[in-house]
């Protein structure tokens, strides 16, 4: 295996394109190094993207924030503007691994690793985040939800990698939240999870919503029926019951050591309800 740390995206694209089967991108390495050690992957070349200009930066863009692919969870968590703009995305990213893992892990890595239980992904999908993909044919923008296609598999073409994530601008009276269920209090893999982003009008009625679920299907689910259950309501009990119902209907989880189908199907609705109420309180400025 060889290691290289290019200083430009063009160089990285060339390296990746000229080693189509044998090269892997290294950012935080918290999944990559584990897979290397376990012998799951055996690349010929590692391309460390942390020295590429701008990839460790968080910059304002059109009222939103562009998060570089090499920004760590800890750096994102310490970014006041990110916390204020998309608190649900930041709280989800901060749930990835331990303090030590937070020092290295990235939301782009979390996304590309394509685990159904990835914490930052439902929150990013609810936020309508956009991934910027670069490859031999130039760069393109892609909805975050289109990146994972199956457990452990993503939609990136050979030679492509993600350079940044755009968290869009946020209008007034809008916010987001993310919750997951784990059997312990910290540092575990989500049994199921829910991200909710919503916008209220001046009277507190929900006028737009996005609800994304994690670990209840092979990939993250964006559930339109769940969003419809919230829109036009004040998130009263009936609306929340409809939301939970829509989440349960959309879920197609597996039984495994972490949870049963029945448990995941029921709990994911409870999480969505609670996340919706947190997002609402944040949108009203009642809590941060």
């Amino acid at each position, binding site marked *: *295996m*060889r*290691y290289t*740390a290019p200083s430009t995206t063009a160089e990285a694209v060339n390296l990746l394109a000229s080693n189509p089967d044998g090269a892997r991108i*290294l950012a935080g*390495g*918290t999944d990559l*190094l*584990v897979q*290397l*050690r*376990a012998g799951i992957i055996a690349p010929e070349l*590692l391309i*460390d993207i*942390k020295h590429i200009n701008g990839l460790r930066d968080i910059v304002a863009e059109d009222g939103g924030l562009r998060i570089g692919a090499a920004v*760590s969870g*800890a750096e994102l968590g310490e970014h006041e503007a990110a916390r204020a703009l998309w608190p649900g995305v930041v709280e989800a990213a901060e749930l990835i*691994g*331990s*303090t*030590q*893992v937070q*020092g*290295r892990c990235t939301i782009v890595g979390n996304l590309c690793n394509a685990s159904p239980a990835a914490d930052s992904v439902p929150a990013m999908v609810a936020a309508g985040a956009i991934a910027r993909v670069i490859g031999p044919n130039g760069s393109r923008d892609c909805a975050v939800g289109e990146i994972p296609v199956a457990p452990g598999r993503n939609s990136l073409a050979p030679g492509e990698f993600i350079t940044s994530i755009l968290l869009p601008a946020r209008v007034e009276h809008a916010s987001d939240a993310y919750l997951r269920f784990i059997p312990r*209090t*910290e*540092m575990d893999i989500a049994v199921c999870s829910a991200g909710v982003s919503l916008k209220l009008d001046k009277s507190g009625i929900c006028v737009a919503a996005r609800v994304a679920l994690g670990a209840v299907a092979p990939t993250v689910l964006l559930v339109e029926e769940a969003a419809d259950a919230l829109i036009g309501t004040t998130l009263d009990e009936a609306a929340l019951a409809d939301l939970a119902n829509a989440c349960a209907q959309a879920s197609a989880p597996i039984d495994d050591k972490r949870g049963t189908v029945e448990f995941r199907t029921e709990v994911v609705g409870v999480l969505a309800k609670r996340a919706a109420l947190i997002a609402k309180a944040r949108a009203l400025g009642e809590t941060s």
Partner: protein
Amino acid sequence: MSKIHVTTTINNDPAEFLCEAEDTLLDVLRDTLRLSGAKEGCGSGDCGACSVTLDGRLVCACLVLAAEVEGAKIDTIEGMSDGENLHILQKKFLEHAALQCGICTPGILVASKALLKKNPDPTESEVRLWLAGNLCRCTGYDKIINAVMDAAAEMRGLE
């Protein structure tokens, strides 16, 4: 294939070494530089026994490639005491008997020092959350948490 030459700073001293692309920072610290304070527990970032700081950021040395630390600043448990004078955290761990077999202790001390630098006055919950990635199979954690809280208080000059 030729080895990779890396120049870095470890515990404020300049250091350089040769490594293979697949060598982790932990491999080099322990086997090349003979700094064996950081321990290998799981080798997959779950146990925290290999905790070090990399440019001030707490990381697992088993999840960092040695080649990545070119130009970086690394601090390990070996740099914690001032010669024979133990760091307050080290003294408090002895005072509170916050260790038994000792394998997890270097990692927990490094992690605790990083916490108190960022947050000199943590709550017990904050200490427990911060140290959730440092596993200890002996103590049951209470003594560790008490030692860190006590050290934090002393470092704030309240005692």
